[in-house]
């Protein structure tokens, strides 16, 4: 074989080797997710027979999902969480942009003072009780507002947006001003459309945070009809973390536990929507990796 041909063969071998290793790593990363999904569509009898471990189910059934959706409050909680996520994320983005833009302009009076004020909240936090007191005093307890308003602007994301706006080419803004654009129009018609990476990235972060909202749901919400999804799912699952002692001394508690397949269906229900939205935002995320390196 010629030297070149040998080299190509070596490359092919190397490539195959690398693909194999990466494939194995990807498999170990993906397998738990796939496993969860598979168990959720396996009939319970099969799962029980194999001690809770099935890879290729003989039969496929969606009974677990039917049970989950028939279960009290899950459909309602889904609605609540979707509402809070959509509205909350839009509000998040709106208010973050409204604050980030002026603060990014060096000509803002007292800019340094305002920035100091904001960064201070990044480092120091009132804590749980003062936050609860404030939310309680504003009458937001036991309303959906408690899940949206207190976390309206995250300082960290605000600073990201501010940095992005700071790097926005000044010429574009000048040109718009010359055309007689007002500030609001400038923000909404010129700057935000060109900020798709940061808007999509922050939108995803805020959205996932709203979707996963758990602790705020516990302490602020009393009405079962207003409970967000994660709290409802956790209520269903919490019995299965019973300790061994309690299990023996309180066997009646065990009688109410959900089966393995239902637990897996719950996991899929809580993860799937975010998993579904992510691919649409992914191209903006990769663009967003170049944040700060904008080309006008």
């Amino acid at each position, binding site marked *: 074989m010629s030297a070149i041909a040998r080299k190509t063969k070596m490359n092919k071998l190397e490539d195959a080797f690398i693909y194999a290793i990466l494939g194995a790593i990807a498999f170990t990363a993906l397998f738990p997710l796939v496993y969860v999904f598979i168990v959720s569509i396996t009939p319970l009898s099969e799962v029980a*027979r194999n001690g809770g471990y099935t890879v290729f189910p003989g039969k496929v059934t969606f009974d677990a999902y039917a049970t989950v959706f028939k279960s009290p409050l899950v459909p309602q909680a889904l609605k609540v969480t979707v509402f809070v996520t959509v509205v909350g994320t839009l509000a998040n983005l709106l208010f973050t942009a409204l604050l980030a833009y002026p603060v990014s302009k060096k000509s803002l009076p007292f800019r340094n003072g305002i920035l100091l004020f904001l960064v201070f909240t990044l480092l120091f936090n009132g804590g749980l009780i003062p936050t609860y007191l404030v939310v309680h005093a504003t009458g937001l307890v036991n309303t959906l507002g408690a899940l949206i*308003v207190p976390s309206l602007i995250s300082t960290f994301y605000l600073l990201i947006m501010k940095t992005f706006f700071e790097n926005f080419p000044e010429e574009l803004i000048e040109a718009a001003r010359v055309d007689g654009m*007002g500030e609001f*129009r400038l923000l909404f018609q010129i700057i935000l459309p060109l900020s798709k990476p940061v808007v999509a990235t922050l939108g995803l972060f805020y959205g996932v945070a709203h979707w996963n909202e758990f602790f705020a749901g516990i*302490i602020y919400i009393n009405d*079962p*009809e207003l409970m967000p999804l994660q709290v409802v799912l956790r209520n*269903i699952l919490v019995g299965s973390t019973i300790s061994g002692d309690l299990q023996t001394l309180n066997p009646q508690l065990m009688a109410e536990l959900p*089966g393995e397949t239902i637990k897996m269906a719950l996991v899929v229900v809580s993860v799937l929507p975010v998993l579904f939205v992510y691919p649409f935002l992914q191209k903006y995320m990769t663009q967003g990796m170049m944040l700060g390196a904008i080309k006008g």
Partner: protein
Amino acid sequence: MRKVMITVRPMLMMVLVLCLAAVLLGGCGGNKDNSSNTTSNATQGGTDGRQASGSDGERLTIEIFSYSPIANASLPPDQEDFVRQTIENKFNVNLKMTYNMVEGNDRYNKLNVRLASNDSPDIVISGGLKALEYKNNNVLIDLNEFVSPETMPNYFKWVTPELVFKRFSMDKTRPEIQRIPIPVVKVTPVSWYIRQDWLDTLGLKVPTNLEEFMKVAYEFTYSDPDRNGKKDTYGFSVSANGQGVTFDWPQWMAHGIEGALYIKDNKVVHYQMDYRAEHVLRDINRMVKDGTVDPDWFLQKGQAHIDKAVQGKVGIIRDYTGKFGLEGDPASPASRSKQVNPNAKWTAFNAIEGVPGWQDNLPSMSYVVTKVAGKNKEKIQKALQIIDFFYSEEGFLLARYGKEGVHYTRNGNKITLNPDNIKRDILDKNYWLSIYQVFVPEDPEVLGLEVIDPRLTDRDREMLQKIKSYPISQSIGTNVAPPPGVDLVAQSKLENETMAKIALGELPPEAWKTTLDKIMNEMGGKELLDSYTEQARAAGMIK
């Protein structure tokens, strides 16, 4: 100066307005449409709209911080909630039930945040360990001035003053009591159940001791009792959840351990800290080695062994609910196993005849009142009156079964249930009545009532009577807490691990003595047992 014109594109303006409106709406109170079966609500559904502070006209608002016995149960709208209507009319209050969390740490986190913000509910239902924590943090009031057989006559039909003021007290050296117990069913209907049709096929009798039990389990495994030509059945099964061996095995009673935590011959017996467990584990291992136990017994969780019994894969199990074998109840495992095999028949039995296999029940949940709530004495008195109501005949029947004439009919002391109406109004509506049932246990005999479920067959009734007749060990009589410095969790972990390993054959039975010695002498086991004994003595259970 440039004129600042605010001209924004209409669509963006709409989005802006929508966002602000949604945020404001979200803050305006939980008026979200209730997807649960409601038509038009004259009043707002659920508990929103009731202000915790202040009163509606002259009505007080009483808040009870409870838990969901069934995950995500929710009360129906007010028109359908007859328990609420009765209480609110009778006591002229607004009743606020905060129950949306299941019993667990999350619920207490929620409560702690509220307490720290001085926003305390009037009555709190708390578990034992948490009540102790609250007491030690000086958060609770002494209930002596509010609780007595005179002020709560119905409650004291279910509990004795000795239990409330002495045995359940968290500090037996002082007269103050910071909690009062929620009554529980006196005796749990624990029993083993065996496939009678398999016994008949193989010509065997119901076992009455360990040897017979093991023999029957052997036959169930190897002699194809369901005659389907396949070796797909096992004698016995449990669900150990990967921890320990469970208390379902008759081996425990066969070797003198007759309950999980109980008093015998003036001594405290703890099933995980007893040297006799060596023999128990040896015999468990015998069954495991013989293959007469479902091989998934150790890893499976929850009700998996019951499911297998329903599927016809297992011939003997132990059940703690009392409802396993009731063929008249369509939800019972016995009924469900009939759907799999119409010949399936289950018999309840005591595997070691004449020997107790469980102890009587101790209350664990309790009512406590925080100092913040306790400032308003009138409210607390009213709240305790409401609690007392649940223990009266009227309250008990209302919370347990429903409305007279609709969900049951009454003839003297006989209550005959109407399962169809119960299903229609209660069970099919997410079993909402269970939220009120946390107050009262299902023990009609305490009030001298007899409850008849018309669906039960005579055989079912005999089965329930038989289970009632089993002997029972004496409970330890008081909630016990480990002494400070003793790591109960570490001990328990080691005990479970060792038991499992011996049962599975990875360690010899003699290893139990070595391990228990270590736990007793080096890990504080002796201190624990001594402390339990002391606490039992202080409660008057031991001389």
